[in-house]
C-alpha cells in the first residue's frame, strides 16, 4: 500500500521539523565519486564497512549466550552451535566475516597505497585507516581465545608472550594482557572486555572520523589518471553500486559459512602440551614466518627481539608514509614508494604461502 503524495509530504515535513535531516541529505547529494579505469577499487572500503556491521550484529547475538569463564566458555560455544536455533550459522558468519573483513581491509589499504590516495590533503584518512587495521587485528587476537579450545588457548599463550621481548615495559605489557602469569580466568575476562567494549568503542570513533574525512575530501583520483567521464553522484548512483557489491560480499560469506562451518577443537587443557604444527591465523602468518626464518641470535642480538623491533619500526614508518612520500604531495611521480608497496605485497604473500606449506 502506498501513501498518497500529500500525506507523504506532511510526514516528511513533520519529521524534518523534529529531525532536520534535509541538510545532511543535501550534503551527501553534493558528494561525487570520480570515474576512471581504477574506480573498481573504491568498492573495498564500503565492503569492509559492511563486514564490520555484520561483525557487530552477529557479535551481539553471540554475546547473548556466551559465558566468559574457563569453566563455561567452551560449553557455551558448544551450546550456541548445537542447541541455539541457527547458532551455528551466526557463529560461522562471525568467524568467516572476521577473515573476509581483514582481506577486504588489506585490499583497500594496498589499493589506496598504490593509487597514492594518502597524499595531501588526505593524510589523516590514511592514518585513521591504518589505525582501524590495527584495531581489527586486535579484535581478531582478543576474539581468538573466547571459544577456549586447545588451539585458541595455545595461540593466545604464544601471542601474549610477544610483548615480553620489548625492553623495560615488556613484562608489564604481558601481565596487563594476561592478568597474571598464566592464561586463565583473568585473561579470558580481559580479552572478552577488550573484544566487546573497549575495541568497539574506539573503532566506532575512528570509523566515524574516517567516513567524515571521506565525505569532506571525497575519493582520491590516482596521479596521472585522466577522468574522461564526469564524476558519479554518491547519492544515489554510487550508493546503489556499493550496495550491489555488498550483496556479492554477502553471497560469498553465506556460502563459506554454510559449506565450511567454523569448527571447534577439544576443550583447552592448560596442563597438556601444545599441539604439534600449531599456526596462527593467515593474517598473522607473515610475522610468524619471519620469526621462524630468523636465527635465535643475529649479530649478538636476540632474533625475536630484533624482528619485533623491526616490525614495530616498519609499522610506524607505514603510518607516516604520507609525510615521507613528499613527491606525491606535490603531485609528482614517486616510483620508489610504488616499488616499496609491491615488494611488501609480495613479501606478505610469499611468507603466508611458506608458512602454510612448510
Amino acid at each position: 500500500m502506498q501513501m498518497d503524495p500529500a500525506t507523504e509530504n506532511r510526514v516528511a515535513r513533520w519529521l524534518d521539523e523534529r529531525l532536520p535531516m534535509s541538510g545532511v541529505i543535501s550534503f551527501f547529494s553534493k558528494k561525487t565519486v570520480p570515474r576512471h579505469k581504477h574506480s573498481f577499487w573504491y568498492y573495498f572500503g564500503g565492503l569492509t564497512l559492511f563486514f564490520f556491521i555484520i561483525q557487530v550484529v552477529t557479535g551481539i547475538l553471540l554475546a547473548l549466550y556466551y559465558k566468559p569463564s574457563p569453566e563455561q566458555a567452551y560449553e557455551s560455544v558448544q551450546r550456541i552451535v548445537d542447541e541455539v536455533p541457527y547458532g551455528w550459522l551466526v557463529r560461522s558468519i562471525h568467524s568467516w566475516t572476521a577473515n573476509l573483513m581483514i582481506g577486504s581491509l588489506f585490499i583497500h589499504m594496498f589499493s589506496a597505497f598504490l593509487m597514492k590516495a594518502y597524499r595531501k590533503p588526505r593524510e589523516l584518512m590514511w592514518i585513521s585507516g591504518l589505525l582501524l587495521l590495527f584495531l581489527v587485528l586486535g579484535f581478531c587476537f582478543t576474539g581468538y581465545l573466547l571459544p577456549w579450545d586447545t588451539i585458541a588457548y595455545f595461540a593466545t599463550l604464544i601471542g601474549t608472550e610477544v610483548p615480553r621481548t620489548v625492553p623495560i615495559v615488556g613484562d608489564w605489557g604481558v601481565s596487563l594482557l594476561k592478568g597474571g602469569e598464566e592464561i586463565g580466568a583473568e585473561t579470558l575476562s580481559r580479552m572478552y572486555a577488550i573484544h566487546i567494549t573497549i575495541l568497539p568503542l574506539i573503532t566506532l570513533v575512528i570509523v566515524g572520523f574516517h567516513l567524515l574525512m571521506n565525505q569532506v575530501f571525497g575519493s582520491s583520483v590516482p596521479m596521472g589518471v585522466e577522468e574522461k567521464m564526469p564524476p558519479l553522484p554518491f547519492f544515489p548512483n554510487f550508493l546503489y553500486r556499493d550496495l550491489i557489491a555488498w550483496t556479492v560480499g554477502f553471497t560469498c560469506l553465506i556460502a563459506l559459512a554454510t559449506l565450511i562451518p567454523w569448527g571447534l577443537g577439544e576443550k583447552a587443557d592448560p596442563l597438556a602440551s601444545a599441539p604439534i604444527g600449531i599456526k596462527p591465523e593467515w593474517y598473522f602468518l607473515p610475522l610468524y614466518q619471519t620469526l621462524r626464518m630468523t636465527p635465535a641470535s643475529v649479530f649478538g642480538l636476540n632474533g625475536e627481539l630484533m624482528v619485533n623491533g623491526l616490525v614495530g619500526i616498519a609499522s610506524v614508518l607505514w603510518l607516516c608514509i604520507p609525510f615521507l612520500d613528499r613527491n606525491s604531495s606535490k603531485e609528482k611521480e614517486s616510483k620508489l614508494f610504488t616499488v616499496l608497496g609491491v615488494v611488501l605485497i609480495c613479501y606478505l604473500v610469499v611468507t603466508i604461502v611458506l608458512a602454510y606449506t612448510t
Partner: protein
Amino acid sequence: MKKTIFRIITFIIVSFLLGTSSCPAQANDSLSAKSATTEVHKTNIIFPDTNVRLTVLGAAVVLVGVLGLFLNAKRRRADRKIGI
C-alpha cells in the same frame, strides 16, 4: 563495465542456485574431504545436516539475488536520470 558487473553477479547467483539444488551428495563429499585435511581445527560439535545447510544457503542466495536485481534496476534508473 556495467554489463560485466551485472553478468558476474548473475553468474554467481545462477551457479549457486544450480549448485545448491542439484548436488548435495557432492557437497557432502567435499565437506568430509575438507574435515579430513584439517587436523588441528577438527570439529568437536555437531553441525546440521548438509541438506539443511544447503537449504539455508539456497534461501539466502535467492533473497540476496532478488535484492541484488532490485538494486541493479534502481541503479539503472538513477543512472538514466543523469544520462549514463
